């Protein structure tokens, strides 16, 4: 009898123990992909996340990596990443952390934008919110496509397993198509106030789309459309990436200003001019307001001697604080797009007019004012005009990640050396592809020769 009681007791114990086992625990820390794209709130949050990631994270290599290659920055440490970029040549490989970072962050943002585009149509929501979500995602995707081919020879238009690469013309055309489609979305259903207020309070989306459209038309050589689209951009409108200085810091401030940065802007915007006997440092024109706008000219430090020992200044401009806002595009770019498009079309006088608009500008909404006199160069020489445009772009659009593309486009005949080069205006034409892409995607094309 007592054994039966004992055994019964033990079975009872076991029973209670087994009953208390819990076997499923949801992740309360973060939603998963299958939970996000099902409703308006999820899509809006993904849109905000896309802007947050692009502006605080992806923008850093967009500015930094080609910034070193095209001498906007001087480097004062021997960390491998900036050192390899400073030296350039064929030794710069797809294993360079900067090259990897730039590639993978752009593609990550592109993937997020593609997820939003693929899912937004399936969800019921107010038309103005849907058009906002779609237009923003298309704009962001077009932007990532643009930045990709500004730095790499080819890029995949659509993310995916074993993604196929397309040449830069196709990629830029795809970006143009996306931007036009975004404009169409907004035209059909104006963006709702709900979306504007919550997702893009600091961005004038329509103007930004037009601005990037103008940029890509120029890159594509479609000068008429470039001029026409640039004209549609309201130069008094501001679109900015927004930072709070704490959890969301200005990414350029983080690597180039905060603490003891090893990457600082070159005192003359890092512009190298070639009077025929080898590169010399460009001397900024006296009184160019953009010099003191972008830099604290009272501090004189030097990059490492092995990197040329060039003088560097402390960075100001849109980057002097953790919460400084960075423009999505600069209105001055529209003027410079027109200048170049006219010049390329042989309309040299119109081009000089636009150059002088930039040089004499004192009313820029962001305060990027050269405040110089009219250009005194040879107004009959197309190449002199293009050189002036290159210099004005280099200064006006300092640290916008465009100089690599500009140098390649305007000084296309220059062939970078395969060897170490710390002098010429660029030491590569395109970056090699990230080795992570190469190792995991059989469709990854061969690296560019230089």
């Amino acid at each position: 009898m007592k054994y039966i009681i004992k055994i019964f007791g033990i079975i009872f114990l076991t029973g209670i123990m087994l009953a208390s086992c819990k076997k499923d625990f949801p992740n309360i820390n973060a939603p998963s992909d299958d939970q996000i794209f099902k409703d308006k709130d999820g899509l809006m949050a993904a849109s905000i996340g896309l802007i947050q990631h692009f502006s605080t994270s992806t923008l850093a290599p967009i500015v930094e990596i080609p910034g070193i290659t095209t001498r906007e920055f001087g480097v004062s440490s021997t960390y491998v990443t900036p050192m390899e970029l400073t030296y350039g040549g064929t030794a710069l490989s797809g294993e360079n952390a900067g090259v990897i970072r730039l590639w993978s962050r752009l593609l990550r943002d592109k993937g997020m934008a593609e997820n939003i585009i693929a899912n937004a149509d399936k969800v019921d929501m107010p038309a103005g919110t849907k058009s906002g979500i779609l237009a923003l995602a298309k704009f962001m995707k077009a932007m990532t496509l643009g930045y990709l081919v500004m730095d790499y020879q080819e890029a995949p238009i659509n993310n995916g397993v074993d993604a196929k690469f397309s040449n830069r013309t196709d990629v830029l055309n795809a970006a143009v198509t996306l931007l036009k489609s975004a404009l169409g979305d907004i035209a059909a259903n104006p963006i709702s106030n709900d979306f504007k207020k919550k997702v893009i309070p600091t961005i004038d989306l329509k103007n930004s789309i037009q601005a990037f459209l103008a940029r890509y038309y120029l890159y594509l050589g479609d000068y008429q459309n470039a001029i026409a689209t640039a004209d549609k951009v309201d130069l008094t409108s501001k679109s900015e990436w927004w930072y709070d200085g704490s959890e969301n810091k200005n990414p350029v401030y983080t690597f180039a200003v905060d603490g003891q940065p090893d990457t600082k802007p070159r005192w003359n915007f890092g512009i190298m001019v070639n009077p025929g006997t080898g590169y010399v440092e460009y001397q900024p024109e006296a009184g160019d307001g953009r010099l003191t706008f972008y830099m604290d000219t009272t501090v004189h430090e030097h990059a490492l001697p092995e990197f040329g020992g060039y003088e560097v200044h402390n960075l100001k401009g849109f980057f002097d604080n953790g919460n400084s806002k960075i423009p999505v595009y600069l209105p001055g770019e529209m003027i410079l797009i027109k200048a170049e498009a006219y010049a390329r079309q042989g309309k040299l006088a119109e081009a000089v007019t636009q150059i002088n608009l930039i040089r004499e500008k004192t009313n820029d909404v962001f305060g990027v004012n050269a405040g110089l006199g009219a250009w005194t160069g040879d107004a009959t020489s197309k190449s002199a005009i293009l050189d002036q445009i290159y210099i004005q772009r280099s200064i006006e659009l300092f640290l916008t990640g465009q100089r690599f593309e500009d140098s390649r486009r305007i000084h296309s005949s220059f062939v970078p050396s395969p060897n170490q080069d710390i002098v010429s205006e660029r030491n590569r034409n395109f970056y090699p592809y990230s080795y992570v892409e190469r190792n995991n995607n059989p469709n990854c094309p061969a690296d560019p020769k230089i």
Partner: protein
Amino acid sequence: MKKFFTRILFVVLMAGLFFGSYKANAQTGGAVTYHFRGTVTDAKNQEPIPGATIIIVNQNLGSATNRDGVFDFTAKLKPGNYQIAFSTVGYKTVVKKLVLGNNTNITLNELISPDITRLNEVVVTGVSGFTKKSHLGNSISTVSSKDIEATTPLSIDAALQGNVAGALVMRNSGNPAGGISVRLRGASTVVGSSDPLYIIDGVIVNNNSSQLINLGGYTQNRLVDIDPNEIDHIEVLKGAAAAAIYGSRASNGVVQIFTKRGKTGKPKITFSSSVNMNQIRKYLPWNDAQLKWDPNDPTKAIPATRYNYQDYIFNKAYGNENYISVSGGKGNTKYIFSASQLSNGGIVRNTDFKRYNFRVRIDQIISRWMSISVGTTVSSNSSNEMPNGKNYGPITSLLFADNLKNPSPVNGVYPNIGWMANPYEAVDRIEAPQKNSRTLSDIQMKFTPLKGLNITYIFGYDHAFNDARLFIPVGFNTKPYGVSEKATMATTMINSDLNAAYSFHLSPSINSITGVGYTYQYNESQYFAIRTNHLAPVAKVTDAGTLTGRSDYRTQRSIWGGYLQQTFGFKEKVFVTLAGRWDGASTFGENERNQFYPKASASYLISKENFFKNSIGKVVNLFKLRASYGQAGNLSALAPYSIYTSYSLAPINGQTGLVAPVRSGNPDLRPERQTEFEAGFDMGLLQDRLGIEFTWYKQDIKDLLLLRSLAPSTGYGSRYENVGTMTNKGWELAIRATVIQKKNFSWTVTGTFSQNHNKVTHVVGGKIDLGMWGTSIAQSGQPLGVFYGYFFATKPDGSLLLNSKGFVQRAKGHYENKTLPDGEVIPVAVQDYDPTTGQPVGTNLKKIIGDPNPKWIGSVSNTFNYKNFTLFVKVDMVQGFNVMSWDKRMFDLFPGGEATAKELRGEIPKGSSFPNFFIYQSFIENGSFVKLRDVALSYDLKLKSSWIHNLKFTMSGSNLVSFDHYWGFDPEVNTEAQSNGVRGQDMANVPIPRVYRFGIVATFN
């Protein structure tokens, strides 16, 4: 969680009431009071043995000897046949038949002999109930408190060092609370930890190495919370063959720790105290040239003052340790209370570690068939750490700085020495304290409702709360606005295990033991962190600054499983065991959740056969052959929620966005599975004067989890997949010998040797990066964590190809695809040469340049006893492995290193060491070392006083000498702390100090 806890308490309470009420009933029926007395004496030197245990088997009755080796107790028993066992740590257990009849006064005098060979020990880990080691089909290593008495290890894992064959124990940092890695038979996972499962008194304990605050890779591991003074003995199962019944937590092996328990008798008080001094053993070869390059003529050296920053960064540090325990027992109750305090300084200025431990354990016999044991350990400890890394690590700064500058403060202001931190300022002004509190509790109930049936229930509770801070004051040169960060981690682990074993004789010659068990385990952790900068002056809390980051992350996990194990023994000679375990865990995919792990083992005690006894039995008194097969999993390799693609939260501009993660989820993940086969023999020679244990093993790990890189064009960076296989093959040997055994002098030697060949047999893509900028990799056909990087350019004949200046240079050329044995294709470097100059051309090439896995490890301990003196000498050997010395790399380039000194002095051409910076092969060092790990001389004042029983003095030294050819501080380090794949990387690490200690132990009763 709380509900679960209250439910368990309720169950325990119910069980107590329920069974307790039948106590009177159970004890009725003609019991007679018997009076047992006698002595237990050492068979070798005829000295009485205090504290030996006398137990009437299966009756919950027994006692212990007093200081004179005498026992005396009474027990109520029914007349009949019983067994009585005499045992104590380090001696062979003797079991005698006991016939109780009319004579109620029983006198028993027993001689027991030391168990030098350890082949007769009784173990419980991995088996159903108490089992003699000589019956097992698998090897099991044991460490007793005596083994570590002389060396006073800092933590439980350190106690395994050199004491367990096949265990590679590495201290990853010389900080006083620095982490330790234990590898039993090599690594068994890539992404997870290869550290074994630790169980203390039945409680599965947390041994996390969480980096709460970024200290540049440095972490503690949580075993440091527990005072190793509490160890009674340790049992170690090294692989799946032995540990299969621990299921999906066992593929790294199982280390079960048993703490000291009270014994029946008068209260015994043990007190020990020690003081110690730590110092750095060796400096990095710094630039002591007292010269610099002339700025006007960079080829000429001119006099200059150079400073040895290491003189200030490192200092002599002192520590002390005190321990007191009170133990005893009366009637059915036994108890032990203990308290300890440890305070130790670190050799890096302003680092230290303080630990307080309190422990209590009560064993209560409730009735003849039921007993309960309750124990709690409370630990509170704190440390002051020093970070590693670019912006504020003092040793990192040392590597980069030009030591021409005097970093000493001028009028209280530390000079700026460049983009790296001023190392003096770092050690003086950075605060990185950690505080940890820990509670380990267990309730264990034992039932013997039927003869031969043992049921145990264990409820274990482990709670750890860790708090880490980082404070860098305003005005710090490289962080001018200051930094204040705080992170906490609360971890709770609960295990609830019910096990039963039933043993009976099928026939007079066949014995059967059946074990069944069920376990439910629940873990949760809560991480919380706040990071700020731009601090207000004076205030140190995070409220004083602006927010730069925060984190609130919670995880929950449960594991459940059951096992069935059946053993048959034939005539105490042949033992066969079969077992199976079913396991599940919440962390894995729904379809892959439930796993089955089988086990089989057999052993044959040939020495019990008559033919053996009659032939070589006079020399070989024990010989056992054993073989074992088993499978086990690695569940903890993967953090919870890895099956989901979880978007990150991104608050901005008053809204919270969702950002796609770098790592994509994988719903089909399953635990890695290790299949192990081991075979070996145990041999006792010359009446156990010499014991040999030898084991050969082979482990195959499949479904190896790897963080597979994804092409960025997928939108993601990586994903966990079960896409690898790995093997470990090796052998291990333990030898224990009494070389000399005289009345006044004895010499015993213990040696452990082992060899392990680890090979990653398959990784998807042929090669994956493990860390340290891709220098530690896993490649198909190579050992885990081999070093990969740029190498020296060589001529086709293999000799160095120098450049036009006569300096070494990087190899250049192209890559060619090569198919590896597993079918994966990887690019392999092929050097190319310029046809005219013969110099390297092409891209810079990388290849495998080193291996951090030792070829073999060994340890030899000698104990010499002369009268009251004992001398203990232990030598550890780790041979045939490489260390990647980033310290050397930096010192080849930056002017604070010896390379610049040589160039300045003209011993080598200027610029000749610079190329080494780019040639990773140049800083691959031979790490092989032989260390004089411990030397301890103790004097035991065997007092005959009435109150003080024992007084012992010990003088010892640790890490006194290292015989190695290593360039840096010490090859026994690892920058990535307890990381599994990244091993043998040395960058700005704190070396292991040399320690001198003086201690005293007193026992009163």
